[in-house]
């Protein structure tokens, strides 16, 4: 299984006063890595206003996952470079996804590049859940 390519695009961690470190994607690599399927102007703004991820968030245990108790629906982009497609597919199956939508060529920000498809799946999930 090919791994994600996020690591090499990260800038050097920014040390915080509380001892944690924030991780940012380098400006010039953000578009290709994170949002290759959105217009360049939009991905430039996303790069400028990206919210960093805490290094600790990538290492700490998640605790009891909600998908074990709650019904799940899954949508992902086949060209996600942060989390490889095979890993996303595995996660969907493990969660017992009631419906999995793969958007061909979509990046990690499938909700930005394909908002209609994401909204459609949310509506479908909400309707199915409200029927009990």
């Amino acid at each position, binding site marked *: 299984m090919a791994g994600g390519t996020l690591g090499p695009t990260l*800038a*050097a*961690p*920014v*040390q915080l006063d509380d001892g944690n470190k*924030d991780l*940012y994607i*380098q*400006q*010039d690599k953000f578009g290709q890595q994170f949002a290759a399927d959105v217009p360049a*102007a939009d991905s*430039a*703004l996303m*790069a*400028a*206003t*990206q*919210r*960093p991820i805490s290094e600790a968030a990538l290492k700490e245990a998640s605790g009891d996952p909600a998908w074990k108790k709650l019904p799940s629906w899954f949508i992902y982009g086949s060209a996600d470079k942060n989390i490889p497609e095979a890993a996303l597919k595995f996660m969907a199956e493990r969660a017992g996804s009631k419906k999995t939508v793969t958007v061909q060529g979509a990046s990690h920000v499938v909700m930005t590049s394909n908002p209609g498809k994401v909204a459609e799946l949310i509506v479908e999930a909400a309707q199915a859940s409200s029927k009990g």
Partner: protein
Amino acid sequence: MEDVAKIEREKQQVSYEYSVLNEKVKQAHAKEIESLKQQNAEDLDRQKRIHEIDIQKRKYKYETKNREYYAFMDELDDFRGLNINIIERELAPMIAAWYASDNGVSSPLFAQANDKSIKIIGDLRAQEAKLFSQVNGLKLSASKDILDLLDELQKTITQSKYYLEEIVGYVFGQQFRYTKTIPESIQQKSAGLSERTIELNQKLLAALRADLDQL
């Protein structure tokens, strides 16, 4: 002699009957006049009350609209404050300092610039949303002239927002990294949008004043 006395009695009788009748007529007229006076007083009172209610209604409408217009102009001023100057004055020097410190790899200076850009864009979008919510409120009772100006203003605000977003993206990009300046062409376009907003602001102010005067 007897005839004279009889005529005199009849004369007296006629005079008496006339007086009685006259008195009755007078009384009837007096009553009618009194009734008319009362009716008139009631009508006048009713008219006064209607007029007073009308004045109160107009006063309430005037004050409500005045408040609404004032709040809208206030929000519009706040939006106009979020312009290229903020990027030039506050964000661009941060980014320049970051490039100067470690050639743009990563540092707390980058984190500061990133925080600033998140704040600028967040404020811009929040202010646009507030303004549009007020514009939609104004549109509910606006005249054709005001509606046209509001539509035009909405378009200009959206253009300004997109443009500022583009400039934020620009100052984080490669060109700014080397030049550390925002090109004249970008500044001119920004100034043009800003002038258009001011022009619409003034036209709208005049239209809203005229609307208030008509109330």
